């Protein structure tokens, strides 16, 4: 008989109730949900995620998009792609959702203190990265230069547009944007995100880069960063995989032997460059 007395007998799958305080459409496909747990602050680190659920519909992993400093209320930015996310888009302030987590390793903020930070994000990648960017802005004195490169497919698909406008004027950081396909009124850059690299100045020895974007983006972005002389051990990325449990059990998120839900989603390039299923 297996002696399991010392371990907790509580099921890992029971969600905590959380209330939606506010819903704000960011684009035609993404909505921002301001959420609060009933009994406690979420207590997340940047780039961690939660399993969001709606009873009868299902569960999905969603990044926490807000700063770790204030997690009584936290943000989830959700694109409606399938079962859970579409159902979520129908919810309104006052409605409740289930939350498990936070899960994942989150970003090792202690390792980047005193560095130049270069954030590279594509599309929905801004959702998780925003938690880190906000953390850095709030702790501005701990870092040197803050540069944010953001690429979206179209101007109308840019997330957090008001915030981007504010960042553009903010002295504390340098925001550069590009879109793949321009629309009327767009006066900014056009082209894939790697075109932005050329315009930014980097101090290769002092720069830490963080990449979050769609799967196709990573290879190109890493190549560009390496060419600029940034060290492999200073390139971080958050990787997406299918996730069912977030607990290192269900197997869906495995990337070779690595459980992305526990050991990730944030990885250092030097740790995953030899992991064949990673990039």
């Amino acid at each position, binding site marked *: 008989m297996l002696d399991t007395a010392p371990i907790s007998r509580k099921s890992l799958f029971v969600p905590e109730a959380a209330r939606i305080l506010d819903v704000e459409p960011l684009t035609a496909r993404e909505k921002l949900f301001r959420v609060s747990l009933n009994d406690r602050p979420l207590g997340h680190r940047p780039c961690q995620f939660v399993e969001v*659920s709606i009873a009868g519909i299902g569960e999905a992993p969603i990044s926490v998009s807000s700063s770790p400093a204030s997690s009584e209320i936290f943000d989830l930015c959700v694109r409606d792609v399938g079962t859970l*996310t579409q159902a979520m888009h129908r919810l309104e302030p006052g409605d409740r959702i289930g939350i498990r987590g936070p899960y994942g390793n989150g970003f090792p903020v202690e390792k980047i203190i005193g560095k130049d930070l270069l954030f590279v994000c594509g599309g929905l990648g801004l959702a998780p990265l925003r938690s880190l960017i906000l953390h850095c802005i709030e702790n501005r004195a701990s870092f040197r230069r803050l540069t944010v490169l953001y690429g979206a497919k179209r101007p109308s698909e840019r997330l957090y547009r008001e915030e981007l406008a504010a960042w553009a004027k903010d002295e504390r950081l340098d925001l550069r944007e590009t879109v793949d396909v321009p629309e009327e009124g767009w006066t900014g850059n056009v082209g894939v995100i790697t075109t932005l690299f050329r315009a930014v100045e980097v101090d290769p020895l002092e720069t830490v880069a963080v990449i979050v974007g769609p799967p196709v983006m990573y290879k190109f972005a890493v190549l560009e960063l390496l060419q600029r002389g940034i060290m492999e051990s200073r390139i971080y990325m958050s990787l997406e995989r299918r996730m069912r449990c977030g*607990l290192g059990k269900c197997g869906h998120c495995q990337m070779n032997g690595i459980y992305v839900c526990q050991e990730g989603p944030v990885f250092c390039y030097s740790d995953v460059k030899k992991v064949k299923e990673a990039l």
Partner: protein
Amino acid sequence: MKTLVLSKMDVPGLVEALGETARLIGPRKKEHQFVFGQITKPEQLALEYPTTILPPSRQLFPNDEPLVRLRLDDVAASREIVEGEKTILLGVHPCDVQGINILDEVFSDSPPDANYLTRRSQTIIIALECQAPCSPYNLCFDKGTYRLEWGYDLLMIDLGDRYFVFTRTGAGEELIGDLPFFRAATPADREALGRARETQAGSFKTRLAGPVNRLPNALKEAYDDLLWEAVGRRCLSCETCTNVCPTCYCFDVADEVELDLVNGTRCRQWDSCQSCTFAEVAGGENFRPRPSERQRHRLFKKEVYQYEKYGRSACVGCGRCSAQCVASIRLNEMYNQVLGG
């Protein structure tokens, strides 16, 4: 550890006695094969079986296992479902006991899975040693899993007209407590045990072209081998190999709703790395789109990834995946290819 003897004539009595103390699960005949199922009458028990379709570990990790009771109108009313009842698994072969040991390790790993562990902590295992290999595909001799060192409560070894019985745990001893069917082993029984084990050892054969401890490395060297393409061309992605595996534990989670549209259950279903959508994410990206990559992942998860994480293989050599694959994809043949045999 006690050494006891149980006459085969007393097995029906034992079955009845055990059935009164717990849910008794054992091998039963199904058509020309065998399955683990509840034993309510002694004649249902078929202790002399080669192997079963599904392994007994699936009793501890059932398909469609309910995890959370849901109220669609109130998330706060979600309640955990952690179930377990006193269960005896009788007649479990050594490879399958070791399959359960592996699931124990995985589900106890942080964070521990209460659903599995609660069921497990109420389960007593009465193991039964095999006298001969059960199929042309099993690797239990190469893997050393045809014998058993731990993970069981009682172990039975067939001596012809009687079973030699080792007790391993207090729970096992308590179970047979003062049941009248067991007597202490005599020197003659011990001698018979020695002979039985000798015959047993002689009947198993090496099937692999090299030592199993070379497998992790040999597989890694074969990561880009053409073997996977060849296997992938034949594989039907039917998921049988993983569903019948005693150590596979991948799952999916889905909600089931009652017709009142108010009550529901969040359940986990067996899933498989062989399914074509297993590693697909929203946006359509599939991280293992090809059957060849999925087959490679299956073998690597058994022999490389778990070896790196837990210092052991996760293949107990039961042979089920090979025996039941409709496309005749044989694990032993794949292993031999990478071992260079």
